[in-house]
């Protein structure tokens, strides 16, 4: 998730919280579908916990919006649209996992950058802090799953590369001043 090339101080907080809320709602839809495709017990359990998190996060942003008298709005999700455009239609659970990993990684980045802003309300800071812990776990477990799958399926490398490339194009088109994402797998596990 990447919402804008503007500074946080320049953004309408209602618009920004709606971006966050919308990303969590969309995320819940994607994770629910991935949960139905998961074969193993561990991945199924992780995706179920992840689904709970996305729904809880959507509620936390909804509550934060209500506290600032903000309306719930339909908002475009420019990063997700660009990411989907450049990756193309996902064709397998591996594709979905790789796309979710890059998207979750950008979400962590976005929330961390927002946490670094000094002048934000207590409600937003508390919400960001609570959500970041979960989001970091999402990035970790999906990265571990991709690493595990890559051990027995060399094609995962291409899938990860395609997702990283789509992310790089998406953030570049949106004018984001952010570093490229690294391969989710530990350095020793990535073929040179």
């Amino acid at each position, binding site marked *: 998730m990447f919402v804008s090339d503007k500074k946080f101080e320049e953004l309408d907080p209602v618009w920004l919280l709606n971006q966050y809320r919308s990303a969590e709602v969309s995320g819940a*839809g994607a994770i629910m*579908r991935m949960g139905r*495709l998961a074969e193993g017990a561990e991945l199924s359990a992780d995706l179920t916990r992840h689904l709970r998190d996305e729904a809880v996060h959507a509620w936390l942003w909804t509550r934060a919006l209500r506290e600032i008298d903000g309306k719930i709005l339909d908002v475009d999700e420019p990063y997700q649209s660009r990411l989907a455009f450049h990756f193309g239609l996902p064709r*397998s*659970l591996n594709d979905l996992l790789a796309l979710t990993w890059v998207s979750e990684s950008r979400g962590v980045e976005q929330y961390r950058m927002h946490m670094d802003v000094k002048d934000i309300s207590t409600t937003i800071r508390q919400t960001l802090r609570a959500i970041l812990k979960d989001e970091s776990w999402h990035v970790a477990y999906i990265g571990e799953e991709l690493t595990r799958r890559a051990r027995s399926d060399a094609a995962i490398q291409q899938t990860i590369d395609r997702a990283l490339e789509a992310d790089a194009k998406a953030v570049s088109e949106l004018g984001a001043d952010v570093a490229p994402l690294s391969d989710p797998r530990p350095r020793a596990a990535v073929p040179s």
Partner: protein
Amino acid sequence: MGYDDMGYDDAVELITRLVCRFRRLDSSQLSATDDLADTLGFDSLDAAELVAAIHQATGQELDVTSYQDLRTVQNIAAHLTGNVTEGSAV
């Protein structure tokens, strides 16, 4: 069950079963010619799930570039079995 030599009717049966499982429908409620977007509100996430489930069941990746290529069960079955004609791809 092997899907290497899947025929068109088998493909229709598989896709109908998957769509009905995801949407909690009885197979009698879905016709192979129903427009999935119009009748079920099928969106890009639904399409991604279906394509991934087909890959899981058959080992085949559908040769489509957009979820809008996946209009009906009949149409998806044609893609899966390589029987796409101008008429069936619409």
